[in-house]
């Protein structure tokens, strides 16, 4: 299985086997499936990640989280990296779901 490239226009959510533990610097994330550990190094990133499932696209989550657009590229890189290691997965309520057969 090859993971599709991360696409901020699509919806994502945390993998069901991922747990987040709050820490002073942000959060530790652990994936029980692939046993990998990640450090989310900003509290805003933790909030954003947790809110992804409530939005039809990553972009919508960015808008709702009121994160300064100048910081979007670094946050998007972080999300893409989380998706690449399977911590984030495309969500079923993706707005593009019907079109992207």
């Amino acid at each position, binding site marked *: 299985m090859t993971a599709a490239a991360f696409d901020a226009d699509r919806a994502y959510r945390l993998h069901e086997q991922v747990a987040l533990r709050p820490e002073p610097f942000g959060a530790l994330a652990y994936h029980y499936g692939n046993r990998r550990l990640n450090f989310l190094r*900003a509290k805003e990133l933790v909030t954003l990640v947790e809110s992804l499932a409530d939005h039809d696209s990553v972009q919508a989550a960015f808008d709702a989280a009121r994160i300064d657009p100048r910081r979007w590229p670094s946050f998007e890189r972080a999300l893409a990296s989380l998706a690449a290691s399977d911590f984030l997965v495309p969500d079923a309520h993706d707005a593009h779901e019907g079109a992207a057969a």
Partner: protein
Amino acid sequence: MTLIEEPRPDNLVLSPVKQSGLAEQMKRGLDAPICLTWELTYACNLQCVHCLSSSGRRDPRELTTEECEAVIDELQRMQVFYINIGGGEPTIRKDFWHLVRYAVDHGVGVKFSTNGSGIDAEVAEQLAESDYVDVQISIDGADAETNDHVRGEGSFATAVQAMEHLQAAGFEGFKISVVMTRHNIPQVDEFKAMADHYGAQLRLTRFRPSGRGADSWEALHPTDQQQRELYHWLMDHPDVLTGDSFFHLSALGEALPGLNLCGAGRVVCLIDPVGDVYACPFVLHDEFLAGSVRDDGGFQKVWQESDLFTELREPQSAGACASCGHFDACQGGCMAAKFFTGIPLDGPDPECVLGHGEEAMDSVARAAVSKDHSRTTVVLGRKPVS
């Protein structure tokens, strides 16, 4: 600053961050450990000459099943993602499989270390079914002669049989764990081939002079030349796990992947079979005893409030290494290795790659091992022909 850090998939192995903000934050400690080792029993059917916990005999004061369950409940509350269970040979405990299941059912993943004696075909199949249980088979030689020299007669065959059971059951990615010694460093490619053959992951860790390792240290610890070879081999094999245990070698050049700091009491600790909590798995000594899970407040209070752990999280002096240009790379090395070779904690690592360890070692008396559960006097077996 990067927003996420993705470590290698191992207990403590983090991507190279050197002295970035994350490493500094780790030094100040976390609300709960990342990597918690729990030696469930000192009982063991083997008596390896380098056993860091001097295991052999069961301690009669061992935590009961109920006490173990209470510790797991607490770890769940603290969101400790997984625990590394060891011993002794943990599968000897009659309630071992019950406790593994109890942990998994409470959201605490388990990786356990075994010499393989408890892994038959049936057990292997059950293990292969769970995403939340990982197995680490210990060997210390790529052939029976080298392995059994350290781990005892027949132990290589037992480990190989366990690996075959795991492979047959379709358990992918179990760990083969090797403590690097003078005799097995030349076999490192063979270990890698063995791991590839079984669809396993190779994990190489540093030999420490802890437990019975203090007595076998002189005979088994790697030579300077071997340390250099190992450093380059590890740089060439970033997929091999190390538990971040070779950071003292980072003074040889580019830093090895990992946090490259001593995690003792900061991100790591150990619970022993009677519930005593130590700063790391390699310092089972009163000097590094922080408290007990049996104390009021349990494990959480020990982790978050004990004097010892509080002290370990304060900025540490570079001591004798302050004037060395490589201190940022090696951080003065391993606390346990220094302690058990009689070097002050702010002195150089006994295996300092710049050679500062030798003289420091000779100048002071060594710390005696304070906990010995050996069944008999343990001596090295017949020396392997290399």
